[in-house]
């Protein structure tokens, strides 16, 4: 029940490896998305790639190339709109986000298989990955890991205080762009497995779970990788046994793990607060007994 589906089906084994590669890549990039508060721009990037992928599909070119072009346009657009028009980053991102999403849907609607194509882009096709996809995801993982390792100090400073990064001699613009770049690479490499809509779940939920327990960035990444990998395994099993969408099953599992972890930490905190209060005011309880 737990091993057999993977032992008997090559496509499931490939999906598991692809999902775990995505989980590790998302754990690294997602840690910075969560700690730097980039969830909205992460979401926008994930949707901003839609017109690129749709155009690539219509032209018969690789969706990855289209996604890369889409994310570049999105990042450049956000930068130009927020600087030129003195709008807040959120407004600029929101404008570009809906604009690109609408454009993507319009382009996709030109396709004869409109619903199928749109669904494939938004929710991925994890059970259809091939060895070429795995190579691409592995390369993406290596690039993201190397950049995150080299830039670990400025990235940490950016997560804490942008001014501190600057006064420590690191260009905040350069490293902010590098951070966005690894988020974009993650989105591009993951859209085939979990899709552009669900990749945000893989970016945020495992890293947010890690941030509940860890006190160091490397530990957040480690926990996020474990949560993402376990979710991939559990999600694929659910998908196989109950005939449900694989990408959605995986992402829902990560969100449920986060919910369980958050509930656990809240209960633990409440118990600790309670015992601390009892330790501080033992007499008040005695008084209530007398009454």
């Amino acid at each position, binding site marked *: 029940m737990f091993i057999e589906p993977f032992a008997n089906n090559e496509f499931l084994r490939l999906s598991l490896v692809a999902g775990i590669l995505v989980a590790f890549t998302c754990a690294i990039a997602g840690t910075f998305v969560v700690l730097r508060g980039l969830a909205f721009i992460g979401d926008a990037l994930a949707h901003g790639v839609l017109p690129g992928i749709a155009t690539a599909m219509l032209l018969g070119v690789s969706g990855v190339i289209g996604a890369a072009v889409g994310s570049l346009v999105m990042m450049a657009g956000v930068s130009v709109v927020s600087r030129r028009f003195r709008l807040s980053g959120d407004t600029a991102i929101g404008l570009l986000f809906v604009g690109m999403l609408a454009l993507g849907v319009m382009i996709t609607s030109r396709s004869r298989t409109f619903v199928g194509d749109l669904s494939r882009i938004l929710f991925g096709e994890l059970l259809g990955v091939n060895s070429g996809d795995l190579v691409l995801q592995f390369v993406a993982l290596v690039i993201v890991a190397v950049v995150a390792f*080299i830039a670990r*100090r400025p990235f940490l*400073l950016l997560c*804490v205080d942008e001014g501190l990064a600057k*006064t420590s*001699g690191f260009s905040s613009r350069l490293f902010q762009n590098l951070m966005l770049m690894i988020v974009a690479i993650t989105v591009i490499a993951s859209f085939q497995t979990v899709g552009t809509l669900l990749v945000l779940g893989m970016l945020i939920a495992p890293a947010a779970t890690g941030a509940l327990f860890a*006190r*160091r960035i490397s530990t957040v990444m480690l926990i996020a990788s474990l949560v993402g990998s376990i979710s991939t395994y559990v999600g694929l099993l659910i998908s196989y046994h109950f005939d449900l969408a694989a990408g959605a099953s995986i992402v829902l599992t990560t969100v449920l793990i986060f919910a369980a972890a958050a509930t656990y930490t809240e209960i633990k905190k409440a118990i600790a607060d309670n015992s601390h209060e009892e330790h501080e005011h033992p007499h008040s309880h005695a008084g209530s007994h007398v009454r």
Partner: protein
Amino acid sequence: MISTAEFTIKTERLAVGYSKFPIVSDISLSMQPGELLVLIGTNGSGKSTILKTLAGLLQPVNGDLEILGAATGSLPKRVAYLPQHPVSTHTLPLRVRDVVAMGRFAHLGLFKKPTTHDNQIVESSMRLTGIESQANDPIRDLSGGQQQRTHLAQVLTRQAEVLLLDEPTAGLDINGRKLVADLIASERARGVTVVMATHELQDAESANTVMLLAQRVVSIGKPEVALRDEYLRECFGFTQPH
């Protein structure tokens, strides 16, 4: 360009502000190693804007400014800046020790590994600010005063020649205030130039120079000159009791 061979900080007709809009103009001063400049004024008077400009976070609107003979922001190992910190609500419960150690990043850059010497500096900075017993606690669980001590320790780990401190005594009790005064005195004794923004007039007692601000330089000079009653009245609308 001005020459700053013997000066740690030198400004001539400096105007500071945001974008092209000056908040305080015509600031001319020069400081030598071991000197203390105290910036006093109400909220919005321009204290923090001056410090951010000295730290290289804002470009001067006009005039000349050099720190240690170079442009601002170009000597991160030799200049340290303590901003006003809101109470920490970091998503990541960073430990006090790790926050303090970030002060060494300017020396370590991207690739250098921290040495025993770096670790010793981190430990001694935590000891000096009285935060060593909380070294392994998450900073967001500490009181505002303890967080301020942590950020002070971070600034000290830079081992800089110029310290730019924006309200370093904010949130500190009487012991904390004395600790900051002692720290500034010992840093000055080893030749460090200190610029400090504050609301407290008593923080100016040991300063070489005081600058009274109200979106312009109301007065500048030795404490007994810059804090005369007429200037205080102009700046705050009242004078200090004699």
